[in-house]
């Protein structure tokens, strides 16, 4: 059924697929399969079920919680060859695409009609629709437009026991349950997504962007809290701290006022009149925090250049140290000032570098630790600091993850957020769709059968 070059194995292949963009834990597959049709996906899943072999779906492998790591070995099912846009329906603002199509390609296919696929994770040029669905990906503009879930009309999946299923409707809503809402964000545990109908959003008529340099972290986080509290819903509200600016300077020669402790990037979009009104109000609020500089983009080129700092920030971190681990936690925006102070204190105590670049508007933090993963002590420090920060997020009434997912990274922390009865409910949701143990094992739900003894092994490979 599968063509000859669709099945790959060997030492190099095993190595290449032993992790995604989360590198602290690694586990090699026995083989990698690259199906080109949904029938082929189904055939592979059925074979795995019949042979009792675990399988793990993988898109571009840009996930940041180890969701595509084949935790118990077995087969990695790559969706990268499911890369066709099957149907574009412009009048109804929707599109049907296979799971391996990149997020950007969706928007590119309909750009001529003034439409786009609104979720915009930083990885959008490479990350796939299937991966975005599995992780319920966010991005800078999800503050206003929402994460992936509200933009997905239907999901077509090969269920964990090998059946072809399509959940959802081609128009939003409808009577009864919306099972697609459970599949989106299920981190590949509830089946292999093979295609989806997505809802397309008109490209906003007007956009206004400003980059603000502030002298203290406190001023910046207070400014964020004030903008949010004003009731304006910016399209994006991003924050970058001093260490990010340092990396940007080293990497791209970007210059900011000397005493800048934090940068805020704010954007309003929508109908011209509303944008103008909101933007003016926002600038007035920002001016109250004694900014060192306030750069408003006068045209599209300048807007792009203001975004450069945000988009290239994490990548630039690669120039400061061999390894970075980007954490992901959520707090209520009103607690941002205290939370950031806590992050710096923890990093200082553990003796590791930390930089912050994140979606401040929805309180979605991304503390980014930079270190050398060849030194086991530093890895330990990073894991410990990460855990401490996560616990603080929970203490402040937040969440373990805003967009990277639980994966293997935070599976051990689920108990910190959810009690036994809560976890029982989670297990029942899993069992409803995936009563077996083969589809993407050891993720999201702690203490799954056969996983605990493997955790030591994953970490062993990393160092």
């Amino acid at each position, binding site marked *: 059924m599968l063509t000859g070059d669709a099945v790959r194995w060997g030492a190099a292949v095993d190595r*290449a697929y032993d992790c995604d963009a989360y590198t602290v834990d690694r586990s090699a597959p026995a083989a990698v399969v*690259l199906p080109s049709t949904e029938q082929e996906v189904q055939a592979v899943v059925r074979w795995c079920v019949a042979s009792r072999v675990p399988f793990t779906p993988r898109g571009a492998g840009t996930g940041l919680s180890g969701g595509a790591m084949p935790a118990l070995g077995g087969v990695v099912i*790559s969706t990268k060859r499911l890369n066709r846009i099957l149907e574009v329906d412009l009048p109804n603002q929707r599109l049907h695409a296979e799971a391996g199509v990149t997020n950007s390609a969706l928007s590119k296919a309909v750009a001529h009609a003034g439409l786009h696929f609104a979720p915009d994770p930083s*990885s959008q040029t490479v990350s796939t629709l299937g991966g975005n669905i599995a992780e319920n990906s966010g991005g800078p503009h999800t503050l206003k437009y929402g994460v992936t879930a509200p933009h997905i009309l239907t999901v077509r999946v090969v269920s964990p026991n090998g059946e072809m299923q399509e959940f959802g409707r081609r128009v939003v809503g409808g009577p009864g349950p919306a099972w697609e809402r459970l599949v989106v964000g299920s981190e590949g545990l509830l089946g292999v997504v093979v295609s989806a109908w997505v809802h397309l959003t008109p490209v906003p008529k007007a956009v206004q962007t400003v980059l603000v340099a502030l002298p203290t972290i406190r001023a910046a986080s207070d400014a964020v809290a004030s903008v949010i509290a004003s009731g304006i819903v910016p399209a994006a509200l991003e924050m970058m701290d001093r260490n990010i600016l340092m990396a940007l300077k080293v990497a791209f020669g970007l210059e900011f006022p000397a005493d800048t402790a934090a940068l805020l990037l704010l954007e309003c979009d929508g109908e011209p009149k509303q944008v103008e009104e909101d933007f003016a109000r926002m600038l007035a609020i920002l001016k109250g925090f004694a900014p060192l500089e306030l750069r408003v983009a006068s045209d599209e080129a300048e807007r792009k250049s203001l975004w450069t700092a945000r988009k290239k920030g994490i990548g*630039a971190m690669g120039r400061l140290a061999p390894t970075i681990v980007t954490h992901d936690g959520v707090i209520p925006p009103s607690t941002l000032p205290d939370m950031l102070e806590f992050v710096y204190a923890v990093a200082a105590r553990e003796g590791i570098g930390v930089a912050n670049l994140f979606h401040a508007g929805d309180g979605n933090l991304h503390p980014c630790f930079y270190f050398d993963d060849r030194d086991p002590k530093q890895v330990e420090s990073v894991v410990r600091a990460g855990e401490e920060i996560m616990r603080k997020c929970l203490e402040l009434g937040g969440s373990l993850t805003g967009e990277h997912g639980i994966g293997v990274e935070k599976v051990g922390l689920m108990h910190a957020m959810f009690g036994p009865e809560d976890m029982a409910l989670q297990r029942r949701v899993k069992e409803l769709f995936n009563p077996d143990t083969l589809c993407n094992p050891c993720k999201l739900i702690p203490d799954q059968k056969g996983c605990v003894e493997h955790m030591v092994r994953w970490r062993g490979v990393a160092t």
Partner: protein
Amino acid sequence: MSQHSLTDLTSHCIRCGFCLEDCPTFKITGEEHESPRGRIYLVRSAEEGKLDWDEARPHLDRCLGCRACETACPSGVEYGAILELARERLGAKPATKMLLSGLTDSRKARLQFQLGAMMPGKRMPALLSKWVSGETPEANIPRVGTVREWPTVDESALPPIRGEVALLMGCVMQVLYPDVHEATRRLLRRVGYRVHDVLGGCCGALHAHSGMTKEAGDRLTDLKQQLPPGMPLIVNSAGCGSTLKESDLKEQTLDASEFLLANGLVEVIRSGREQRVRLTYHDACHLAHGQGVRSQPRELLRAIPGIEFVELEEADTCCGSAGIYNIQQPLLARRLLERKWEFVQQSGAQIVATGNPGCHAWIAQRAEEAGQQVQVLHTLQAIEMACSGMLA
């Protein structure tokens, strides 16, 4: 070339994966081990003793060395340097050495190509190809080039000579495309420069890309001895230019399009006769990704009066030629060529301009297979033909 160790170079990759969709071999295979991120990981693993170098080899062999990933990389990973060092670790295969010894010696190359033209079929004998690549050949044996009959230039209309520049004749270039050199000389004269031909020698680019760093270094040393000190070195072959710009000749080396644009060629082009033709531009990898030269050739081409310049979809994605890649990996190279050709046809262009002999010959072969509705020219040929009123 970078002086860092392989471990340091590879450790800058944070595995974000932002390079994936810019990698031609990942785009067509979808396989992690055929991507920049995958290859860097394999090299790092081999260097750290967690993987046999031999296991990594086939995947490094399949890398085009186009360096599109460097353009995409937000962390500034020096992929080209990693690849060269890794290939040095692996050691060049005898077949590669054989190929390069012929190609990069212009006397040998001329002889081989002339002999090739006398053999049946257009391609390398199948047995030889099997030895080199394990696959049947796809690339035609190149033909020894000739110089077209250019009209004489009215000396009185030319500006006075204001300086002299050196023009790299190169190894393959002077055998295959003497006409491109002639076009370059004429264009340089049009902006007031006399040309000093740097005849002998090879810059070592092809050796370096194959991991034969010592041979590459020796060739560069020989070349340096032939250069008049301080004179700008003009290069019209992207691969050579990119290697020279990473050597200690980087201060003097300029791609011809950069130099000509900076010296007022646009005005000269604009004063030419109208050329009604639709033209597109293919970015040679070693110009776009290796040297960051993207806008200059386009500005020059767009200046041609009456021209309809159309952008090529995926213009800066490798065509599969990649030095000697189309001899070593015929099947993948052919898939990339077909992809490139599809976009060429979509563009509706009558002329494809490009700035590197490898791309030139490879895309021209595809144009020939399609029955010559599309003409493939070096950027400078197209421009000089426009100036001489013979493009359309």
